[in-house]
């Protein structure tokens, strides 16, 4: 599960706790959550890290290099225009199985995730 967020994106900050909850619940079942900030890298310590700290994120997360935004967007989805929040589900082979654009609920993510985890068993 790859999610793209930014500190300036209010719906992203609203949504992140749901994704972190899913990670806590399904990490041992095969879910890997990758959080990518699309903030300006200059804001890493002043803006990005404080939000992650507040959310209790204690694992490695990533920040997009602003020199490669289009490559980054197309890498996650040719059909994704770059709107955030955006969350993508990939299987072990790297095939994308779902894309969510805009703020979504814990249940919507969970409903998409569970069948995939069951299939992967």
């Amino acid at each position: 599960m790859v999610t793209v967020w930014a500190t300036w994106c209010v719906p992203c900050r609203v949504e992140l706790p749901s994704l972190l909850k899913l990670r806590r619940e399904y990490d041992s079942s095969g879910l890997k959550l990758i959080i990518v900030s699309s903030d300006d890298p200059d804001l890493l310590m002043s803006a990005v890290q404080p939000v992650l700290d507040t959310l209790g994120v204690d694992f490695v997360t990533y920040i997009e290099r602003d020199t490669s935004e289009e490559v980054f967007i197309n890498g996650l989805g040719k059909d994704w225009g770059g709107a955030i929040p955006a969350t993508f589900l990939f299987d072990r082979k790297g095939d994308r199985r779902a894309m969510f654009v805009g703020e979504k609920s814990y249940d919507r993510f969970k409903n998409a995730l569970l069948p995939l985890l069951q299939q992967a068993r």
Partner: protein
Amino acid sequence: MKYLLTLVLAFSLAAFAGELKELKTGDNAPQFDLKNYDGKAVSLSAMLKQNKYAVIMFISTQCPVSNAYNGRMEKLFESYGKKGIAFAGINANKEELVADIAAHAKDKGFTFPVLKDEKNVIADAYGAQSTPEVYVVNQKGKLLYHGRIDDSKKEEKVQSSDLANALDALLAGKNVTVAQTKAIGCSIKRIGE
């Protein structure tokens, strides 16, 4: 049965974003007839009746990325509006009301219209996902450019003025070299979400 239902539900939900129609350059741009924040009707056909091209900009009053472009959008309109290019902003965000759009346009000094797309019907027809996201249409109604205004939220870091480059090419009678671009922006808040 419960599992099957969950599975079906999951795939129908997951497919939603992918179901948005994605316009390609050369496609017919969907017609619209919407109201400006001052109540006046603005249609794509009327914009193109008096102008060579129309620039349609999906924007927001609240999105920080869209707001970072307020000054640039007004400058583009002031520069290209007098060269036969019509501009219109479209606000499709469900939480942003006509009164908000009017106050925002006044506050930011917009002299181009900003139309309210109730129930995101036109955003859906265009497959617009984010703000700001722009489309350039010719008099035949064909889409000639789709994507970002330029390549940086920070004006001082802009290296590629993609929308202006497209408009310059069209005004010079040339083809648009880079007709499709992308950028990180705010998702359009649609009804039912």
